[in-house]
C-alpha cells in the first residue's frame, strides 16, 4: 500500500513536470475566468443512543450532531435540527438512522437501542413444578452385567438424588429396575427388582423415608435402547426414577 501510494505520487509529479515543460513553450493568451465558488464540503453526521440497552418501558436518549447539512432527518422521528437530543421509548430493539444531506452528498449514522424483553411471568406454583424439578435433578444409576451392586460412582449420584429429595420432602416417586436384553425374561424380572430395591435401600440409608418410595421391576420389558450393543445394554441396566403425582 505504502509502495503503491509512493508510486502514484511519483506519477503525478512526473505528469506535472511534463505539463510545466510543455507550458513553457506557450505564450499566455488570456486571463481565465474566476473559478466558481467551491462546493460546500460533504456533510458529517453522528448519532449515539444512551443507554443503548434498556428494559422494555424504559427510555433512551438519542444524541446527534451534523455539520454542513441542509436536510437532516431521523427515521421514525422526522426532520430534526443540525444537532440535538431526543428521548425514545422503543418497545422492541430498534436501529435509529440519522440522514444528513446537502448538494454534495449524504451522510448516514445509525444507533441501535436493544430492548430486553419483559421478564417471564412469575413461576407457576411450586407443586406444578415438582415433576419438572424431579426430572431435572434426579439422576438414574447404572449397573454392571448381572449385578445389582451400586458402584462408588453411583453412590455419589444417589447422594445428590437424596439431597434433592430431602429438600423436597413432599415428593413421592417410583424406582423402576431395568435390565439388558440378554438372558431369561423371568431371571431379569428378579434382577431388575433387586436393582430397584438396592437403590431404594441406599436412599433409605441416606435418610429418605421408605413411605415415599415405590419400586417396580420391568426386567427387559421396557428397554431405553434397543440395539444389541454393549453401549445400549449399559443404558438398559439401570434404576430409573419416576415422579409420582
Amino acid at each position, binding site marked *: 500500500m505504502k509502495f503503491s501510494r509512493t508510486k502514484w505520487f511519483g506519477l503525478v509529479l512526473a505528469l506535472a513536470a511534463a505539463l510545466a515543460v510543455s507550458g513553457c513553450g506557450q505564450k499566455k493568451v488570456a486571463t481565465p475566468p474566476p473559478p466558481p465558488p467551491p462546493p460546500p464540503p460533504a456533510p458529517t453526521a453522528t448519532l449515539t443512543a444512551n443507554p443503548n440497552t434498556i428494559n422494555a418501558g424504559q427510555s433512551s436518549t438519542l444524541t446527534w450532531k451534523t455539520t454542513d447539512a441542509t436536510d437532516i432527518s431521523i427515521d421514525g422521528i422526522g426532520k430534526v435540527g443540525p444537532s440535538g437530543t431526543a428521548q425514545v421509548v422503543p418497545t422492541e430493539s430498534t436501529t435509529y438512522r440519522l440522514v444528513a444531506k446537502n448538494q454534495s452528498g449524504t451522510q448516514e449514522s445509525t444507533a441501535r437501542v436493544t430492548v430486553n424483553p419483559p421478564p417471564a411471568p412469575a413461576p407457576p406454583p411450586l407443586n406444578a413444578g415438582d415433576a419438572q424439578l424431579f426430572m431435572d435433578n434426579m439422576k438414574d444409576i447404572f449397573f454392571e452385567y*448381572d449385578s445389582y451392586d451400586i458402584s462408588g460412582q453411583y453412590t455419589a449420584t444417589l447422594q445428590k438424588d437424596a439431597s434433592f429429595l430431602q429438600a423436597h420432602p413432599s415428593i413421592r416417586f417410583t424406582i423402576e429396575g431395568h435390565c439388558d436384553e*440378554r*438372558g*431369561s*425374561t*423371568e*431371571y431379569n*424380572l*428378579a*434382577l431388575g*427388582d*433387586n436393582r430397584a*430395591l438396592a437403590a431404594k435401600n441406599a436412599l433409605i440409608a441416606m435418610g429418605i423415608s421408605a413411605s415415599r418410595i415405590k*419400586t*417396580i*421391576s*420391568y426386567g427387559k*420389558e421396557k428397554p431405553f435402547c434397543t440395539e444389541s450393543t454393549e453401549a445400549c445394554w449399559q443404558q438398559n441396566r439401570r434404576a430409573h426414577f419416576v415422579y409420582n403425582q
Partner: protein
Amino acid sequence: MKRFAIYAVLILASFTCASAQDWIRTGTGLGVEKIRLAVPDFKIGANEGSTQNLPLTFNQTLWNDLEAAGIFDLVGKSFYPLGAPGVPQDVRLKDWNQPPPNANMLAFGNLSVQGGYLSVQGWLFDVKNEQSPQVLGKQYREEANEGNARLIAHRFADEIIFRLGGGLPGIAETKIYFISNRSGHKEVWQMDYDGAGQKQITHNGSIALSPHVSPDGSRIAYAGVTKDGWQIQMWSLELGRSVSFPRFNGTNQSPAWSSDGKSLAFASSWSGHSDLYSIDSSGGAPRRLTNDKGPDVSPTWNPKTNAQIAFVSGRTGLPQIYTMASDGTNVTRVTDQGYAVSPSWSPNGQFLVFAWVRHYGPGAPGASDIYLMDIASRQFVQLTHDGGRNDFPSWAPDGRHIVYQSNRSGRTQLYMMLADGTQNRQLTTSGENTQPNWGNK
C-alpha cells in the same frame, strides 16, 4: 397320570442314560425301528354345499399329525396302489404289505359332508397280520366346518398314536399357551399344538408373562403388571374371565402348577429379595421354600412325583439350575457353568430341558441353546444348534416333543421339535412370541 407315568418309564427306560449321545443318535424312535405307516387320502362320499375344502383340510391335518408324532415312517403317496380304499372291504392287504409300499400299518377311511354335518369313518389295519388286520375302527360326526375337520383328524391321529406309540397319548388335541405382543401389548394367547387356531386370551393392555396352564386345562396362571405391581393372575378358561388370586407385596412371577393341580410354586420378592414359595391352587397356605439373597425364579415341579422342584438361582453369581425337595430342603446344584435358565421337567421325571449359555464370558459367542439333561447321571445333550437365542423350552405331555422360543430368524418365534432336537417346525410368524407352555389334552 399314573398310567401315563408307567408308560413313560417303560419307553424311556429302553435306552441307557449313561450314553445319552447314543440315544440322541437313535432318535425318538426310542431305540425301535419306526413303523412304516401308509395313509392314503380318505375317500370322499358326498361333499355337498361346502365352500370350504373340508376333505383337503382333514387329509392334510391327519398326515401332519402322524408325521409330527415322530414315531412313524410315513410311506410316500407315490408308492400307493391306484384306488384308495374307503372301507375295509376295499383293502387288498397284498397291495400294501409288499413293496413298493411295504407298509406295516395302513390308516384309511372315508368322509362325507351332508346336511351340514361332516361324517368320518376311519380304520387302522396291521397289514402284515393277514388273519386279523383291524387294529382300530372309529366313527366321527360333527357340524361341517374347518375347525371340526381338523378336530376329527386330530382325534383319529391320537387314537393311532396311542395304539402304536407304546401307549403314550398323542398330542394332536393339545394346546400351547404363550405370550404374544401382536396386539401391541404382551398378552396370553393359545393355539393348537401345530400352530393353527391362534387366539388371544387376555386383554389387559399391560404386560403379561409366563403363562402356565393347570393340568386339567381349566385355568391359566400368569404374571401380570397390576396397580399393585407384578402379581400372579389367574384366568379361568371355563368362565372366560379373570378369577381372584391372592396378592403379595413385591414382584410375584413365574408360576408353575404341580401335576396334581393342587399347588402352585412361584417367585416373590415379598421379603426383599426374590425367593420361591408354594401355595395351594385355591390361594391358601403360602409356604416359603428358599431364603437367600440371590434371585430365585422359574420353578418347575417333577410332574411324576411332585416331590421335587427344579429352579433357577443367582445365589453364586450367574444363574444356574438347582433342584430341591418340594418343601425347600435338599438343595442341589445341577449345572456347573455358564448361564442356565428356564428349566422344564419331563413328564417321566427323568430329564430337565433348559436354556444354557454354556461358555459365558469374554470371547465366548454366547449363544443360548436348549439342552436336555438326565438328572440322575448329569449327562446332557445339546438340542438346538441353529444359532440365535433359544429359551423357554416346555415339554409336551407325551414326553417326546418340546416347544421353545428362538430368535434364529430375526424376531422371536415359537418352534417345536422332537426331544432329540430333530423335526424342528416353526409355529408362529406374527409379532414376537415367547414363553410357550404345553398343556395337557
